């Protein structure tokens, strides 16, 4: 437990009484009459108080501390005594710390409720729902204690970066290559199908009208006319492709002219026609 070290407890008890005056002055605000009203077993040097209170992980933790410190049986808590001690701490926390988690107050209410139920006389005939008012609290305390221990066990496990260190040998450069994802043609076509379905209304005709060979040729022509120089019109045609090929090339050039990607230059009538990129001057 992250509570005051055991060896400080007995000595703190005596030092608290010895230095009584100073301490009282220090904590004068606590419940009006501070140290004298503190639980007798609250052996905490005043300057360590906040740290001490900080060590509690909530009301269950505080209750467990109160119970364990007195070697009390969790299963048979003297509820009145514990409630009183708990309230002392809560008062103290309210004085010392500005914010007190609401959970502490909820627990205080629960304890007071249990206390009052314990004080009520019981009639023999309502045995049915007459369970020990402490049962729920005991169950919660036991469960919390179990996980409090589990957390400590976890902390004790040897772990990386503290008790174990992973290795990291260097790999010579060049050995590492990252492969991009694989794509199947079907995936590509399925994606296109999706897009077409969405874009059906306004783009379908346009997309379908032109054959792929024309589209491909347009790219090829653009590639051919990539530099700043003028390319003779005739060079864009490969006679060996036959009539169909020539027609496709011609259509490609027309499409590109229409799209204002290329411009056609003829210095004078009947001079060779040449092509170049449009607007290339501005770009370079």
């Amino acid at each position: 437990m992250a509570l005051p070290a055991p060896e400080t407890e007995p000595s703190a008890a005596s030092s608290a009484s010895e230095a009584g005056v100073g301490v009282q002055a220090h904590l004068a605000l606590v419940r009006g009459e501070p140290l004298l009203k503190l639980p007798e077993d609250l052996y905490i040097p005043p300057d360590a108080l906040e740290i001490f209170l900080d060590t509690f992980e909530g009301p269950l933790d505080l209750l467990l501390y109160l119970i364990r410190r007195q070697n009390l049986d969790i299963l048979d808590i003297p509820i009145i005594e514990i409630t009183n001690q708990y309230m002392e701490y809560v008062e103290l926390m309210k004085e010392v710390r500005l914010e007190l988690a609401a959970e502490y107050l909820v627990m205080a209410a629960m304890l007071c409720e249990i206390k009052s139920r314990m004080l009520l006389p019981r009639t023999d005939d309502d045995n049915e729902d007459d369970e020990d008012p402490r049962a729920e609290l005991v169950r919660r305390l036991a469960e919390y204690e179990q996980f409090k221990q589990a957390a400590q066990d976890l902390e004790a496990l040897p772990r990386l970066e503290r008790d174990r260190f992973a290795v990291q040998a260097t790999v010579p450069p060049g050995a590492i290559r990252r492969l991009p994802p694989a794509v199947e043609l079907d995936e590509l076509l399925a994606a296109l199908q999706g897009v077409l379905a969405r874009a059906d209304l306004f783009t379908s005709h346009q997309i379908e009208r032109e054959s792929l060979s024309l589209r491909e040729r347009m790219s090829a022509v653009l590639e051919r006319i990539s530099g700043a120089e003028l390319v003779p019109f005739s060079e864009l045609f490969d006679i060996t492709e036959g009539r169909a090929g020539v027609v496709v090339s011609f259509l490609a050039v027309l499409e590109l002219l229409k799209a204002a990607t290329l411009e056609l230059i003829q210095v004078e009538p009947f001079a060779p026609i040449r092509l170049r990129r449009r607007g290339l001057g501005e770009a370079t």
Partner: protein
Amino acid sequence: MSDSQARVPEVTQVVEGALLAYGEPLSIERIQGLYEDHERPSREAVLTALEALREAYQGRGIEVVEVASGWRVQVRAEVAPWVGRLWQERPTRYSRALLETLALIAYRQPITRGEIEQIRGVAVSTPIIKTLTERDWVRVVGHRDVPGRPALYATTRRFLDYFGLRSLNQLPPLTEIRDARFFEQALETPPEPSHHHGDQQDEGR
């Protein structure tokens, strides 16, 4: 690939190089996957290589261990205190609140934040959940089908790796709740009259 021309090294060499370079646990399958189909060693061959390494590392500064996601080489515990001085900063200590939250998720998974809060008796702070998630020790595995659909948290393989465990079964057992018999009784049946007397002592406060 030029790899195909290279002489295939011994399995032990490749396994050692891979484990040491990767720094994270490697499964047998992952190691086999380093090879082209025609040169791939059998599962047994990889296991034999791991065993050979384990022996070769006897009395050395490192060791081969098996954790949840596979095999890993780590610095031996005996030299860890010296090696740890390589890093100036002390390794982060985790708060009790974080460890308790982690313990609850580990032992009670899948669990909602509300359930954790109920057992701990205090609110679980968002930074704690964030830290646990960022460390990849904990993740959301679903949602409970109740109003608000709260997230269900569970621990990850990396959590096990980090704490050097092969499975959740290797977690330290939860401590028995003392006198479970009474505990159940207290919950299920009305307490015996004798207890009333015990309580009444308190009247003498």
